[in-house]
């Protein structure tokens, strides 16, 4: 079975997801996998922006927070139906992305990094200080679980299929997007904005569109996060979480859809496995960011595949075609 063709990949993905579901009876693993799924949505979105379009964002957690708090406030305080609240979250995050994206995306490199970073910090301060609305630093509780046709998804095991269905759909959409006309234009503007413009690509509008797309992914993840935890606090959406998201993108591999899944998985499971020496987590985390960027700039997935290709070249002496997109 040739795994390269798209359909085989989704069959494999579904198989693995189901195998895990059947194999586990323990709520802890479902909670862990749900978090991996939620973080994957975030990381794929950021990867489209950072990996494919080459636009750095150090404030991505802000959209995650906006989605979570819109869902949280509308459902816990105003009793709105969770699915409507989720849509409202998408609308709010999308418009916030346009508001900040239009001026910010005119900037480049460090300036763009600082603009997104500033925006992220301002949002986390507002979540902390607007206490009557957001419950302030002690958080917002009483968020009802999502329910499908009256069936409440109030345990991790019940939420697992919904979250991983969303992950599967988003991975498929993103993989298609990357290979489509717009995806190529995106990768083009990353390599040379001037050349892309000379072919008729409206680079400013495209950067804004992908910025809004990644914000929508983050908002969706935020709503799912709010309904899976039933309680949210501002500390989870601060500056350090934005940095953790960048690390997940970098580890998995910039410009690699599947790499995002791997990056989110490794950096969620690692702290759990390393729980015995927690004090080292920050050191390991910082080291990952540095080492991967220096030695494996294209991330684990591409790095390992490059290594495999390189060994083939050494053994057979023929020069293999380099990697296509979306590895």
């Amino acid at each position, binding site marked *: 079975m*040739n*795994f*390269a*063709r*798209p359909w085989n*990949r989704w069959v*494999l*993905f579904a198989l*693995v997801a189901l*195998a*895990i579901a059947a*194999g*586990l*009876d*323990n*709520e*802890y*693993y479902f*909670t*862990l996998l749900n*978090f991996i799924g939620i973080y994957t949505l975030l990381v794929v979105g950021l990867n489209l922006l950072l990996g494919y379009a080459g636009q750095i964002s150090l404030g991505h957690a802000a959209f995650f927070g906006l989605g979570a708090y819109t869902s949280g406030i509308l459902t816990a305080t105003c009793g709105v139906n969770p699915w409507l609240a989720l849509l409202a979250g998408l609308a709010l995050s999308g418009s916030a992305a346009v508001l900040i994206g239009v001026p910010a995306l005119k900037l480049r490199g460090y300036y763009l990094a600082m603009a997104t970073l500033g925006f992220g910090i301002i949002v986390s301060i507002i979540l*902390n*200080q607007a*206490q009557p609305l957001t419950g*302030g*630093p*002690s*958080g917002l*509780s009483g968020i009802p679980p999502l329910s499908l046709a009256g069936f409440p998804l109030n345990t*991790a095991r019940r939420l697992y299929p919904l979250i991983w269905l969303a992950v599967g759909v988003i991975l498929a959409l993103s993989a298609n997007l990357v290979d489509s006309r717009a995806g190529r234009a995106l990768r083009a503007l990353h390599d040379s904005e001037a050349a892309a413009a000379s072919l008729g690509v409206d680079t400013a509008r495209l950067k804004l569109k992908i910025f809004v797309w990644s914000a929508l992914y983050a908002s969706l993840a935020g709503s799912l996060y709010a309904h899976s*935890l*039933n*309680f*949210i*606090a501002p*500390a*989870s959406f601060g500056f350090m979480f934005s940095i953790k998201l960048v690390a997940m993108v970098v580890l998995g591999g910039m410009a690699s859809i*599947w*790499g995002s*899944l*791997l990056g989110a*998985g490794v950096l969620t*499971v690692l*702290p*759990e496995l390393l*729980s015995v020496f*927690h*004090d080292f*987590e*920050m050191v390991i985390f910082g080291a990952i960011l540095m080492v991967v960027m220096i030695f494996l700039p294209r991330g684990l*997935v591409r790095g*390992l*595949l490059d290594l495999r290709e390189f060994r083939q070249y050494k053994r057979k002496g023929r020069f293999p*075609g380099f*990697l*296509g997109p*979306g*590895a």
Partner: protein
Amino acid sequence: MRTKTWLVGWALALAGLILAPGCGPGSKSEPYVIGGIFSITGPQSYLGEPERNSMEMVAEEINAKGGLNGHPLKLVIYDDEGDVTKARLDAEKLLQKDRALAIIGPSLTPTSMTVLEITQKAKVPLISCAAAASITSPANERAWVFKTAQTDQMAVSRIYQYCQKHGIAKVAILTVSTGFGVAGKEQLLSQAAKYGIEVLAQEVFGEKDTDMTPQLTKIRGTAAQAVICWGTGPAPALVAKNLKELGLTLPLIQSHGAASKKFIELAGDAAEGVVMPAGKLAIYQQLPDSDPQKAVCKEYAEKYQARFKAPESSFGGYAYDAQRMLDQALMKAGRDQAKIRDALEGIKNFPGVSGVFNMSPEDHNGLTPDAFVMVKIENGQFTLTD
């Protein structure tokens, strides 16, 4: 040309397999498994670290004496780093993987709120070390949740009693922007009228802020007769220093969050004259021998300093009391979690470091305002004051 990405698919399957066998350990093993969740690293590590140390100290002692009814105590302690997501995962691990009979912690209000949502559902007794009253109230929704930290209500009423006694009717409050600060601020505002006290200014500061002179300058502009600073960590010490720098002569009243030797060390001579409510641990030497808490505090302070070569902390006292009360409940109820809950609820005049506990179905904290005494710092030492 598509690349072959079976590598990723297999990696995921492998991850599934590695995690799978880890679940479902033998549940009939000998020891009583007790869970612990504290903020050992992260910004609030000054809470989590002494709490973990105190819990381990008690367990070591019990196991040295052959455990409870012959069952050794097995502690499984996780660090939630003050992060809500991690606290949730740690709690799931304790319930599902480690099958803990009961859980002590977490250290903070937000992490306690998210953990009690699932321990309540799983009917596992939880003894939180955080301060907010909402952790154990409303009582009917918190049947399985207890707390050993004195609530902010009591600290505020002690402060206001002190203000009344010293003719302070107009105060300015300066609270930290954390769960602890927000809960304190609510109490300070709601109880002020009851004691005939008027709050003229409400300023806030960040947990990591290092200069509070603007807030204090604003307060100086009001007719406040005293400043009440509600915070934990290093910031309250800086408030004391800033106050001195500005040459303000207003008396400074801190919360029980600042009742530690570390505050005196950091504030230096700006700590002179500062008043605050504190558990009796801070001044146990000055207690009359008849006070039941004196012996407990003395024992805890001496053992902690011997074991960890660091000054004892009132925060550690929360976990110390929790573990000792849990031991008493385990002795009585054995492995049955419902019986452990009932035993905990039935605890009467239990002398602890943080006060004398009298639990009841309506009150899962069991403490009264007199768990606090007012102390003043004079030449670097806590002294009892009224």
